[in-house]
Structure formats: C-alpha cells, structure tokens
C-alpha cells in the first residue's frame, strides 16, 4: 500500500515538474497571472473591511473573525485550484480535440495523469493572498474561545483538508460535465457564483438557504465550518455537514468512473 502510494506520488511529481516547466516558458505571463489571481480574490475581504469600517457587519462576527473566515476559504481555494482545477480545462481541450484517449493509453490512473498534467502554478496567488489575510486576522481573534486552542487548531486543520477535498470534488464534477458539455466555459462562472456563499457567516442566510448550502451543495464546509471550529463556536450541524461533504466527493468519484467508461472519443 505504502509502496503504491510512493509510486503514485513519484509519477504525480514527475508530471507536475513537466507542467511547471511548460508553464515556465512564459514567465512574464505566469507572474502577471499570479498577481491578478491574488488581487481578484482579495476584493471580497477588502469590501468586508470597508463594511466594518462604516459601522456595519455580520451579526455575531467581529471584523477579524469575518476576515479569518474569508481567509480560510482563500487558503482552501489556493491549495485546490493549482492542483485540481486545471483538469477541467485540460479535459475540455482533450475531449474537444479527440486526444483524451492518449491518457487512456497509459498504464496509470487517468485521474492521476490528469491532475499531474494540469498543475496551474498561477493559482498559487490565491494561496498567498489567503495566507497573508489569515496572518493579519489571526492575532486579533481568540482561538478556540473557552475550549482547548490546540484542539481547535487540529479541528481547523482537519476541516481545511476536508474543504480542499470538497473543492477537488467540485473540480471533478465539472471535469465530468466537460465530457458532455464541451463548451463549458460557463462552468467556472457557475462555480464561482455558488462558492461565493462560502465567504460569509451563516447568520446572514435563511434556514432553507443554509440547508441547501450544507446538504445539497456542500459550500459551508469550504469556509464557515473550519473558521467556526477555529473560533471555538462549532456549528451543531458540523457532523452531518462533514458526512454530506464526504458523500458528495464519493458520488462525484462514482460519476467520474461512469463518464470514463462512457467516453467514446471523437471520430478517427
């Protein structure tokens, strides 16, 4: 098992090195893209800052707590986007060109190959922005409140990992859709619109909206739930939300296998 994991990781890093080398051929574009990614994702936190400066805010959430929530989501995105979201566009391109079968001709997991080939270093700009915001907000909040702060930190780390896994699930879902929806440039826009709900505390949503964001589309787990655990105010729905997110990822993996089996390629 460990040998297989090491073997898989060796392949993954070899492909990742290739993808990075390919991206490095246009370093100016890479640098500009990274800065744009960083700035674009900092718009909402800056707006939050303005809102709080004018005396308004999210009920029950101090300014730095709200910024911490948003930083959590940015960190999760900053990890998931460079490593997972490139596969959507790679798949769309390969399916459109009829060259997806070149991946199927390799004696490895197609998903592993896709992930390795699709590394997007420019998206690490999101991660830098998220870490910077997190470092700014963290000193001004109380970690774990009355509870043990190390337990809160551990819980936060576990939920952040789940957030990254859930984002991987979203990326894989969009990859699956790209088999049947070739002109899927709208997918990312739909995802951005839906995932934007992860940037705000739950207090601003109605009960039915919360139900949707927790059970149907697992958005809560992307920011709110990890941040609330770190602040020592875990949501009562946390265990079910975690279960829901894991189920979502498993269902998407099942869908991926089905789409792969159904792939018929373009004509000769």
């Amino acid at each position, binding site marked *: 098992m460990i040998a297989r994991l090491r073997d898989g990781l060796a392949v993954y890093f070899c492909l990742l090195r290739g993808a990075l*080398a*390919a991206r490095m051929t246009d370093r100016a574009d890479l640098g500009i893209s990274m800065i744009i990614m960083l700035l674009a994702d900092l718009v909402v936190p800056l707006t939050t800052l303005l809102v709080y400066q004018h005396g308004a805010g999210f009920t029950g959430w101090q300014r730095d707590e709200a910024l911490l929530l948003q930083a959590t989501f940015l960190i999760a995105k900053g990890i998931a986007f460079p490593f997972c979201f490139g596969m959507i566009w790679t798949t769309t391109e390969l399916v459109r060109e009829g060259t997806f*079968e*070149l991946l199927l*001709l*390799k*004696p490895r*997991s197609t998903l592993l*190959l896709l992930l390795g080939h699709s590394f997007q270093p420019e998206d690490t700009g999101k991660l830098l922005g998220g870490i910077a915001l997190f470092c700014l907000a963290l000193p001004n909040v109380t970690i774990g409140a009355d509870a043990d702060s190390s337990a809160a930190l551990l819980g936060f780390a576990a939920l952040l990992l789940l957030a990254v896994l859930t984002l991987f699930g979203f990326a894989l879902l969009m990859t699956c859709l790209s088999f049947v929806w070739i002109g899927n440039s709208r997918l990312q826009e739909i995802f951005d619109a839906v995932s934007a709900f992860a940037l705000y505390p739950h207090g601003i949503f109605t009960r039915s909206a919360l139900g949707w964001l927790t059970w149907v589309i697992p958005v809560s787990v992307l920011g709110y739930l990890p941040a609330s655990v770190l602040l020592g105010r875990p949501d009562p729905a946390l265990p079910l939300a975690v279960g829901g997110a894991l189920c979502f990822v498993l269902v998407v993996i099942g869908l991926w296998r089905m789409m792969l089996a159904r792939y018929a390629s373009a004509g000769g």
Partner: protein
Amino acid sequence: MDRQAGTVAVEPIISVRTLRKTYTTFERGSTFAETLKSVFWRKTREVDAVRGISFAIGAGEIVGFLGPNGAGKSTTLKMLTGVLYPSDGEATVLGMTPWHDRKRYVAHIGAVFGQKSQLMWDIPPLDAFHMNRAIYRLDPARFEHTLQTLVTLLDVGDQVRKPTRQLSLGERMKCEFIMAMLHEPKVVFLDEPTIGLDVFAKERIRGFIREMNARGTTFILTTHDLDDIEQLARRVIVINHGCVVFDGDMAALQHGVGQTKRIRLATARPPGEIDLPGVTLLERIGETRVLLELDVRRQPLPAFVRWADDAFGIHDLVIEDVPIEDIIKTLYA
C-alpha cells in the same frame, strides 16, 4: 473481389472475433427551423461503425489496416487499444481482453498517432521520455539503454533536448516513435505515422519500423499512404462499411487484381472502336495512343496482342500491373 481469410502461420498475438460497435448519433437538418427544433428534440440514429469483424494477427507481423474514411478502422483500433468498449464480440491481444483491466493491458502495447501528439509542446521530448519512465515504472538502467538505442536508430540526439515546438514535423514524429517504444511494447498500433512527412523522413520512419519489426515487435499500421503499405506490410486487411472486405497478403491482393493489366498502346493507324470482350478503353492519349485495361481471364494477352497488331499495327506496347491505389479503390467501391 471475394473476401479471403487471412492465414496466420504462427500463434496469433491478436485475435478478433465478431467484433461490433454501434454508436448512437444525433441528426438534424440545416435550416434555421430545424436547428431551433434540435435545441429541444434531436432525432437519434444507430450507426454500425464496426459490423462483426474477425481476424487474427501473428507475432512479428506488420499488418496494413486499410479503408476509406469512416470505414471503421479507427473504431477498431480504439477497441483493440482498450480505449473503447465494443457493443459485442471478443478480442484478445497478448492474451488479454483490451477493454478489461485496461491499465495492465496498455503497459504492453504502444501507439503512434500521426495527428495526435504524446509529447508536450513547451518542453523537450527528453522530459516527456522521463515522464514515461515514471508512468511505465521502467528500470532506470534499462530505460537509458533503450533510449540511447532508439535515439541512435532515429538519429535525434540533438533534437530531443530542444522544446518540441522548435522541432520539424519529421523530428517530432521520430520522437513520437521513441515515446511509444520506450517501454519495449510487443504490439504497436500506428495510425497514419507518416502523414505530412517528406520523403526522407518517411524513409527513416519506415526503416525504423522495419528494424523494430526485425527485433520482434508486431505492428498494426493504419494509413492512407499506400507506399507505407507496399513498403512495410506483408499482409493487408481492408475494411469498408464496418466489414472486412479483404484479408490476405499483399501478393494475393495484387494477384487478385493481377488478372487485370493496364496496356499503353501506340499504333500505326488510329484505333477506332475497340469492341473486344475483356478490353476496356480507359483513355485516348492521342490519335494513335490509347490506355486500355485488359482482363486476361476473358481475353488472353497473346490473343489481344495479335488482334491489335492485325487491326491497327503495333508501334509500341507497355504492359503494367494495375496500381495498388486502383486495386484499393476497387475494394472500397
């Protein structure tokens, strides 16, 4: 032409039995109303891409797989490479069913596509070769040895270190071959490997295929370039409308239509109407020159020569076999 069953002298390495693939496609008209209607409802149609084909290929063969566009060649190739599930039928390659346990199977085969690159555009082929070393779990020492052998055979020592986008098409194709052969596959599927190449690059690629075949690799070659077939394949499988219409060696293919000859005739007197059984006038080249096709089963050659000399007086006579292109066209018809 009657279908001839291909005979395999050695134990088959590829065995295909009544393989079938049916697709569902959508149909719509081209008018605005029909386009609008297709947004809500599309008529489906079942297409039999491959209609129960059977053949066997022995180890060490080079088999040409021919057919017009849309004949079912690529679909068959995709099923044999494990990329596509058939609708029905069986196939075994190297004792494995390609579409079952795909990952284990594809470790033993190679594929080169003239129009689909396995290299990465922005990085040198050498980097892509090293990716394949990891993907195929190749022993580093053996990988280096195989790489050196292939690089020497194809004479691309300098090119493998340049970014792929800087290579000529010929150099790129040579690197595609290295990419496909690094894991020393026993069976290699080639899909139009010489498309767009100049004569020198074609010759180098063909020489490489012959060399690897002499070392024991079996090749299945799909191409529209009949020179490739003539120079490489000893056996040809022709597929049309999803069915095998010819399966036999090249000599049998040429002999089958070898009963027909092309005759370029220069005469002393202008040849008028030629109304002779088994003789077809193909072209009048000049007043006293014609191109004829002669079916020697209906009109023996000596009898025709005597008749032509008596009728018009023969100045010059050239007898040719029917070109392979025309033979194939007959099969495609």
